[in-house]
């Protein structure tokens, strides 16, 4: 439970609310108990004596108490929900902030899907706990303790009933929990299987139809469907015991109180001075007993929930605890970049296992030069580029921009001056404008249009009724692959960066448009240094020089097309394979 306690620090700023919440919960529970207690006065004292005044007085007190009770209830709901919502919002924001600070190495370790689950489902579960905290978590023990105190005070003799009912209830609930838990786990697994079969079929109806494998798929589905039915039936059967058993125990309590009460009355206890049996005590005791048993049930539910919330809390804490391994240098340089790049004996790997994606890479690029980078998949082309804006740090060697190591630059300044278009164009919800403006927040409309023009997306934007304000759905799902790539290229263009990196950024753009976009880079007024990753010889050969990476992450050659055809075996092979298969290019 320690992880959940750590997250309670988000609740502490609301000390005043906490005090009110606990206090009002106390009042509510107290009212719940005190009203039956007062009733004893009416039934056992006032009624037999025909004392009208007492009835009136006690009734008024009870009305007052009930009003007090609902008032407390409302205040408690208000404060506890306030704490839950506001504390969770703070937690969620902190978590989001922390994620923004994480380095790529951190993120690779965690995996993005996990971080998303943490920020959504896990935070939600903690919120549910916060919500329950000052309602059920506080209430259950209060009910048990107060019930026991009042019951014992009312009658020690009748309290003997608890020797039977309490252990019975606790035991039953425990057994049910132990039996139900693994069954529900199985249900979840069976459901995952079932969903997977549906998902695969929903994803690939064309495959299923082409191979006419419907009977096979129906068989697979029948298996998982049946499996799920059985798992569910088994779990629900356990749950079918819950309500009847608990009900039985409650009613057993009623019968026992009646029986034990009557026995003691026959022994001369619970008789008023007037010689009349005090049945009010029995009634009050009965309601205490109910409250205690309800409290116990709540408590066991809380325990189950607490253990699940703790799992979520520990996963959140893990992220909070992680140390960020890529930080700004103590005295960061914020200078304007010219665009000369040099790698000196750079080795780099993602893990600590000594597996390098890049080995002893050394080369230098002049300011304004256009360089193509080629090599087969997994040769480290993207890794190489990620070192420039310091998404990762090198393991060995130095990466220099204008002869200054990248890790001496202020990170934000450095990234601000590199236009990087990633392989899978990342587009955010908003509009083409909001996405492009990420490159330059304060750009004016003219700059926006120029960048869009050069990335060949202006035409698309003009076609939209809302133009630049055309609504883009999350992850750009309402845009085609080509449109996304063009927008992300415009986002890099508007930066007017001294260094421009295109990582296979035009794969979904047709050949003619690709050629025009690349031509526009020459027309950019600031002459950036261009680094272009591509698989296509025809595209890459138009660059000033070409850097060839071999499969083991070493440099196999650096020069012009003609030189490389002779000197770089890797380049020659790639070129030949493309040439072999039919001249120089694709027709798309």
């Amino acid at each position, binding site marked *: 439970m320690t992880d959940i306690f750590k997250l309670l620090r988000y609740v502490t700023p609301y000390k005043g609310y906490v005090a009110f919440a606990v206090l009002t919960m106390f009042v509510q529970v107290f009212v719940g108990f005190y009203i039956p207690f007062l009733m004893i006065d009416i039934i056992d004292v006032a009624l037999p004596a025909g004392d009208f005044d007492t009835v009136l007085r006690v009734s008024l007190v009870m009305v007052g108490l009930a009003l007090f009770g609902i008032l407390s209830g409302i205040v408690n709901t208000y404060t506890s929900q306030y704490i839950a919502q506001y504390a969770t*919002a703070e937690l969620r924001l902190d978590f989001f902030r922390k994620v923004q600070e994480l380095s790529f190495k951190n993120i690779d370790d965690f995996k993005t899907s996990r971080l998303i689950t943490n920020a959504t489902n896990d935070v939600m579960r903690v919120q549910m706990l916060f919500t329950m905290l000052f309602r059920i978590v506080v209430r259950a023990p209060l009910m048990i303790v107060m019930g026991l105190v009042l019951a014992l005070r009312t009658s020690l003799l009748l309290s003997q009933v608890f020797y039977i009912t309490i252990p019975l209830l606790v035991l039953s609930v425990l057994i049910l929990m132990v039996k139900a838990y693994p069954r529900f786990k199985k249900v979840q697994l069976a459901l995952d299987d079932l969903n997977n079969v*549906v998902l695969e079929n929903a994803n690939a109806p064309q495959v299923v139809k082409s191979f006419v494998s419907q009977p096979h798929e129906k068989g697979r589905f029948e298996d998982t469907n049946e499996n799920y039915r059985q798992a569910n039936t088994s779990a629900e059967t356990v749950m079918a015991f819950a309500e009847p058993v608990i009900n039985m125990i409650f009613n057993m309590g009623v019968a026992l109180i009646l029986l034990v009460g009557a026995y003691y009355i026959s022994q001369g206890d619970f008789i008023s001075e007037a010689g009349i049996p005090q049945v009010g005590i029995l009634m009050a005791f009965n309601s205490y007993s109910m409250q205690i048993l309800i409290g116990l049930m709540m408590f066991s539910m809380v325990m189950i929930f607490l253990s699940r919330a703790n799992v979520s809390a520990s996963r959140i804490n893990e992220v909070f605890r992680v140390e960020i391994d890529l930080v700004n240098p103590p005295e960061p340089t914020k200078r304007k970049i010219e665009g000369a790049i040099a790698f000196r004996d750079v080795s780099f790997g993602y893990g600590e296992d000594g597996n390098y994606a890049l080995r002893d890479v050394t080369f230098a690029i002049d300011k304004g030069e256009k360089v193509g980078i080629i090599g087969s998949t997994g040769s480290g082309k993207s890794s190489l580029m990620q070192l420039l804006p310091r998404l990762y740090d090198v393991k060995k060697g130095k990466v220099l921009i204008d002869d200054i190591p990248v890790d001496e630059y202020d990170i934000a300044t450095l990234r601000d001056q590199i236009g990087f278009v990633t392989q899978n164009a990342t587009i955010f919800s908003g509009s083409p404008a909001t996405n492009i403006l990420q490159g330059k927040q304060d750009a004016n*409309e003219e700059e926006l249009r120029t960048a869009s023009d050069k990335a060949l997306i202006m035409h698309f934007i003009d076609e939209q009724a809302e133009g630049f304000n055309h609504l883009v759905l999350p*992850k750009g799902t309402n845009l085609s692959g080509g449109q996304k790539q063009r927008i992300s290229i415009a986002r890099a263009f508007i930066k007017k960066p001294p260094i421009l990196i295109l990582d296979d950024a035009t794969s979904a753009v047709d050949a003619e448009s690709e050629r025009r976009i690349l031509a526009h880079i020459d027309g950019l007024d600031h002459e950036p240094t261009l680094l272009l990753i591509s698989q296509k010889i025809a595209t890459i050969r138009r660059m000033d020089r070409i850097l060839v990476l071999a499969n083991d992450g070493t440099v196999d050659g650096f020069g012009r097309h003609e030189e490389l055809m002779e000197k770089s075996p890797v380049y020659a092979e790639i070129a030949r394979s493309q040439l072999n298969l039919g001249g120089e290019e694709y027709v798309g």
Partner: protein
Amino acid sequence: MSADEKRILTKRELTEKLKKTIDPTDPRLQQASGGGGRRGGIAPKPKNIRETVKRLLSYMGAYKFAIFAILLTLVTATLLSLFIPILFATALDDHILVDFNLEGVARIAFLILLFAATNSIIRFFSRFIMVRISQKVIKRIRKDAFDKLMRAPVSFFEEKGSGDIVSRLSNDVELVSNSLGQMVIEVLNSSVIIFGSLALMFYLNWALALVVLFFIPLMGLFTLKISKKTRKGFKEQQIHLATLNGIIEENISGLSTVKLYNQEGPFIEDFRHENDKLKRAGFMAQFFAGIVMPFVHFMNNVIFLTVIAVGAVFHIAFGVAFVSIGQIAGVSQYARQFIMPIANLAQLFNALMQGIAGAERVFEVIDAEDEYALDGTRTIEDFQGDIAFENVDFAYEEGVKVLEDITFAAQEGDTIAIVGPTGGGKTTTIKLLNRFYEIMTGRIAIDGIDIKDIRKDELRKRIGIVLQDTHLFKGSVFANIHYGNLDASEEEVIRASKLSGAHDFIVKLPRGYDTTVHEGGQNFSQGERQLISIARTILSNPALLILDEATSNVDTRTEAKIQQSMELLMEGRTAIVIAHRLQTIRRADKILVIHKGRLIEEGTHEELLAKEGFYHSLYRAQFE
């Protein structure tokens, strides 16, 4: 309207627009909010409650006697349990206060135990049986839905999207199953308690019962008012939550771009903005939902003490004959337990509506179009491989023609290359051949037989398709290849794999053919996936071939391998290829240039170059 006449909207303004596209009743959203079910959910309004309920009932038809018997015994059991307070009161009145008699008390205590036990046993068994019935019914509904999926046209899947379909078969069916199993019993239970308690209160003492009756409209009114407020609150909360979760997902999955463009700050600001909205909306929703319970407690107390106070007054004023102490005790106990069910009914109603809406969404799948309703009847031995498109028009939606007047012919063994810009209709053309879509006008024939006359299954079995983005199933590599022909032996599978060139990389995998393919085949590169899919197609031994060449993201060596095995596959078979490589195009017997839905040029590479038309300009764009 041109963009420069308009102000550029900020991200926040657009986010508000985006919120209008969110459906707060989407069951997937309810799950994400952790609400779901009874407290937090908002029920969508079912379109046709009567029809849907009728249909659900027809599913339960086979069990109607069992269900009827269960409901009947349940009513009995609940009534039985309602007698327990009366017994308690009688014990106090008759055997303790008036004429003390320990034996009488013991007898009543025994009766209480007996009633309670009977009640519990009936409850257990009815639920035990109900679970079994509802699970069988649910399984049946699920099976019907899946069976329909197997017969629905491709367009159905494209329209709905896989996420939605999965949600219908899992979340929605789950909602139905909750309604069937638990809700019906609880609704019945609550109603019996409300009416039973009332009746018993009248039986005990009509005057006190009248006092209690007075509170019902009050309770009903409050429940209605508050549920309106909560509904509105939850709706808002869901929308904000969906928006915020959207920001989280986008941001985290696009974190490299966020960092590269120094967008951490703006994102945190947007997040804070939405987070604050969610916190306020969530607070309002939860507050109103939360005060239901204190109010129920309050009403409990008020009714309880009203009964006692009024009872006491009557007792003192009119004597024991009018109101006895035992009657006060009894009525006050009933009064206590009958407010909760009223509050419950409102929530149960909500849950029931969710169940019905869920059923509607599942039934929509079951009612989907059956593509085999329009099936041909001809069976065929095998295809020679002559293909003819005659004046084919096609549209995905009415009025928007994607293909117009496509006419071409291929002879047995021909390779036809289709080229043209993206979005021009190349993929659509090849998907018409195996009747994934129905053409509007014109005719497609194989060996002179209109494909409409051939049974779809037979037609499709003889046409092999290798698409660019290959879909692999979760399971072993072997199982994935075997999928091409489930009757094939292990040797045949391996032979096909060797022919495709996939064998070489498969044997290098740590577990060879037993290596598990993860969901969607993510643990294999696109090239490897394509090699596996070619092996699968080789195994299925089709008469005709449809191929979509890879464009990008496949490294050169694998690409060469794919090329080789595709060529092997095409040998002796008529093939239609969406071609990207010049070599394929040069070797093709005929090239079709498709642009903007029309077949604009046709001929061999040399012929088309000589023509100096569209193809020529496409070709030149590559080299200059």
